[in-house]
């Protein structure tokens, strides 16, 4: 049990919290923030866990840097899409059921 392991543990906790938020919330912005929390947790695990073996390892830090860039671009894309979605529909969440529309229309066709 050393400092690095505590980082990894914190990362695990953050990821679980993020996952919980991602599943429980319907508001698109909240889900996006939950995703970012989960991402940060992942990065902490990635750096924390691998340091505990052989002192300071630079590779995971380089990996995390790449991961952060990816997460930032994903967040930017999501924000653009969410904004456009809000402008078009006035809603802050996606409809609950993907198939609700199609089911009713197929019933009409069969009946």
């Amino acid at each position: 049990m050393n400092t690095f392991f505590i980082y990894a543990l914190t990362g695990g906790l953050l990821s679980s919290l993020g996952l919980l938020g991602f599943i429980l919330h319907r508001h698109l912005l909240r889900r996006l923030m939950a995703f970012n929390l989960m991402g940060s947790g992942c990065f902490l695990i990635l750096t924390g866990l691998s340091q505990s073996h052989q002192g300071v390892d630079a590779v995971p830090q380089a990996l995390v840097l790449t991961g952060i860039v990816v997460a930032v671009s994903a967040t930017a894309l999501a924000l653009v899409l969410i904004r456009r979605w809000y402008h078009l529909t006035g809603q802050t969440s996606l409809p609950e059921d993907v198939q609700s529309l199609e089911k009713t229309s197929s019933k009409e066709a069969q009946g």
Partner: protein
Amino acid sequence: MSSLLQELPQLLPWLVILPLFWALFSLALGVLYRHWIAGVFIFLLLATNLILIGQWLLLGDLYYSLGDWDVPLGIQLRLDGVALAMVTVTSLVTAACSLHASTYLDDYPRAQQYFWPLLAFTWASLNVIWLSADLFNLYVGLELLGLSAVGLVALTGQTEALGAALRYLYAALLGSLAYLLGVALIYSGYGQLDLPALSGLLESDASTRLALALMTLGLLLKTAIFPLHIWLPPAHGKALPPVSALLSALVVKASFYILVRLWLEAGLQVVVPSAAQFMGALGAGAVFWGGWMAWRQTELKMLVAYSTVAQLGYLMLIFPLMVGVSPTAAQLAWEGGWLQLIAHALAKAAMFLAAGNLVLAMRRPDIIGLHGVGRFLPFSLLGFGLAGVSIMGLPPSGGFMAKWLLLQSALASGQWWWLLVLAGGSALSAVYIFKVYQQCYIEDTEVDNFRHPSLLLDLSSITLALLALSLGIFSAWPQALLATALSGGGV
């Protein structure tokens, strides 16, 4: 000729660099010269691909270390038989989709500006994934692919497409985080991310199992394997036809490709038969649920999208048919599984392009609008019909050969229950495809109200469908190509 091929510089990185340049050029120039730029770069990529096929035949598997840094620190690109097959299929399908889009997008002037850069980015990230043998590089490839694919889905900016894109984006993000967590656990355990190097190292302890489980979960979500497929039908069904074709044919296959590399190349010592049977069961669920839902759809493109869910299920049979069986059965399953992937890529791209043409012609998305198509638009229907032959798995198509090989493998390893899945799935796909054919030959009007799609649109679909058909006739070549990449011959 052969000495010329040997003396050529290493062309492997250009498979990634060329599409990236294409993306930058078309982003900078906007809609100006977009067709010329696309033409030049597609030509260059096809030429590179051809030369690489020649080099591979001459020299065997090709490797390239980026920036001359060797494996533990640097990133290596690798072209083996399977990667070569994937690269080639990607070139063919993307070229055909570009041809289709060059005409189809005339109706969507706003979408044109971003379609070409995003298409090029998608091509680049697909090639990154086929050529990488490094877990983190694969993660970057997956993320790039996910972001450009989401952009393509949202291209029209209409409500339905936007909702589908958001749902797709959230699923993709969740999937890649699960994958990344797995990568973190693997790195902390072994200090190594290179797949060939890991194949000898992996031990079946708790943290490795957890890592593999997390990565598998993430990849299953991205491949849209039942029951994690909810995001796929709207994303593929509501996008523009060339985009749907690209997504169904190639994008979902990328994460499946990583899954196979992970399970059957790196994780062979760790993977247990019961886990492989579970993967097969998910595949069976996908085949039946996807087929059933496809039959129930009223919109043509949604039917085709659910058919993708079903067809992806067959791919999962590669796991139970390869883990814990004799080398002969494993080889049959290996060739059959990849052949199914290639045949589906070609046939489904053809089918989506044809469905797009039919929707364009009837000016409405539902299947009932097809009445009379058989009489007035036989040429547009031809692409759909030929693609359907391969999807149903009728001889002599590529789909038939793939299912035949899987069938023989199931017999060779005595796993008769997968025969039921193969037979039942084919019957279901015949039912939903004949549902479409049937509507095309109902004639309730004597007037031709259809808008006739241009020849180029029909030709791009028919070409792909013919390729899918001929894959069955000439299947010996791809089979030989794929067999070279089978590690150790058996499990």
